[in-house]
């Protein structure tokens, strides 16, 4: 029950002036039920990487195993794979097209061949999970606010009951409150459904709080892979590639350098506050 990538390489527009080696020898394994963050600067290959996970892009070389089966083998059922690995693209609200929210969310389940009742049942569940208010179910998706559109679009993927949910920058373009709400909801979802959740972002601050594993991409290569605490110990190297550790990491390192023996591993504000208080009490 896992996704396993072996030496994945991907080259955009090979043999042209626009040739770009987007992924270089990426190998990783993601266990079922993990909450993984993929972080990288613009152009680091993170969006390309996740499109491999449900077979939308075929690797130039390398192998990808989903639940032990090589998806590049002849006769592999891609449609089945896409039912199990749900992919929410960046700005997913741009894919809405139906006359009302309900029918739009039903699009996925309908393609899976479910009956109308089942589709609606699943759509309701999914909309509920993302906290979409029931009074807008019959509204045109084009009349909704940005945040609501995004919820509806995420529900559209959730309604397919994927085992793995991949979200590409789900908070891009949202205000801080909308961002926190969406991220909280995703974390809640992960707890409720035991789905594997893969969250792509360029903001450390966003992901550090939620994920149990962090993969840092840089120029098409996997740079770090580990628990957030581990990854953030490399905060100086991260800065060199245009990323930053959460602000808390900087404060804790600064404190420790100026003589307060705090544990520099803490990644959230609450943990850090407790740690500082504990140390101050000692004195």
């Amino acid at each position: 029950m896992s996704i396993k990538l072996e030496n994945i390489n991907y080259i955009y527009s090979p043999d042209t002036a626009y040739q770009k080696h987007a992924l270089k020898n990426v190998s990783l394994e993601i266990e079922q039920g993990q909450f993984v963050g993929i972080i990288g600067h613009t152009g680091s290959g993170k969006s390309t990487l996740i499109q491999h996970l449900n077979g939308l892009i075929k690797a130039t070389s390398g192998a990808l195993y989903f639940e032990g089966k090589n998806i590049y083998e002849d006769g592999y059922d891609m449609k089945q794979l896409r039912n199990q690995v749900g992919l929410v693209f960046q700005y997913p609200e741009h894919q809405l097209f139906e006359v009302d929210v309900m029918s739009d969310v039903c699009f996925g389940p309908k393609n899976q061949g479910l009956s109308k009742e089942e589709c609606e049942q699943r759509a309701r569940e999914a909309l509920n999970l993302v906290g979409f208010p029931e009074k807008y179910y019959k509204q045109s998706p084009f009349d909704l606010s940005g945040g609501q559109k995004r919820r509806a679009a995420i529900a559209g993927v959730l309604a397919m009951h994927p085992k793995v949910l991949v979200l590409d920058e789900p908070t891009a373009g949202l205000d801080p409150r909308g961002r926190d709400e969406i991220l909280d909801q995703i974390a809640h979802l992960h707890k409720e459904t035991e789905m594997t959740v893969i969250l792509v972002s360029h903001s450390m601050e966003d992901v550090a709080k939620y994920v149990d594993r962090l993969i840092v991409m840089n120029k098409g290569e996997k740079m770090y892979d580990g628990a957030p605490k581990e990854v953030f110990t490399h905060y100086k190297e991260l800065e060199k590639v245009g990323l930053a550790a959460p602000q808390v990491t900087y404060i804790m390192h600064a404190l420790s350098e100026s003589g307060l023996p705090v544990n520099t591993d803490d990644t959230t504000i609450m943990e850090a506050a407790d740690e500082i208080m504990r140390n101050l009490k000692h004195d």
Partner: protein
Amino acid sequence: MIRDITIGQYYPAKSILHRLDPRVKIVCTLLFLISLFLNKNVISYALATVFLFCVIKLSKVPFKFIMKGLKPIIMILMITVVLNLFLTSGGDVLFQVWKLKVTEEGLRTAVYMAIRLIYLIMGSSLMTFTTTPNALTDGIEKLLHPLNKIKVPVHEIAMMMSIALRFIPILLEETDKIMKAQIARGADLESGNILQKAKSMIPILVPLFVSAFRRANDLAMAMESRCYRGGDGRTKMKPLVYGSSDRIAYAVTWGYLIAVFLIGRFVAVKLWIF
């Protein structure tokens, strides 16, 4: 998937051809196309070949890349060749397949037609490979400027062209993205009859139109907020001015055209039937 369309694409490189004034490239391409239709015998075709390949060499665009642009016209090319080959009469019959006769005249027209078509595409794609769409519309605007006197809104037409050209890659990318998003939601775009296929395009076309309108709106707003109000009295940051290499390019191309014309007129060489 849709990324691989090459016709009408710019190939970034540093060459004399890239640096030429777009007007020169437009006019010279036209002259070259005219020359193709003045060609009458082996020598003038040889001259055209030498001219074209020298220019390609100068452009630093890989030959493979130019050949790729020929792919879309292969069908048209085949049809032209076959029709010309069998349906043109005149001269001796070279050979006969069933009721179809291949005559000297037919073979000659077919071969010449094929060469003309291939060179035509190569010549004009060389222009788009070495000129950015913006430079191209700039050139067209300047060339058509005299039409302003008879109330043709030249600037507006050029502006629309450059916006349209600029939007092609954007909309292609957008289509690619929306297609992927819908495929990820289980949309089936390939199977079924024509009607089902057309219906399966709805989830792609609706968001595409919505986004095209949104982008058009944003662009209009951005242009207006920077005080764009049409071409009257508008100056350019980089006005087009002819340099010495532009004059040389004109001279060479005109020289070539005249040579082709004179060869066709006065030199009578025959190599077998050509």
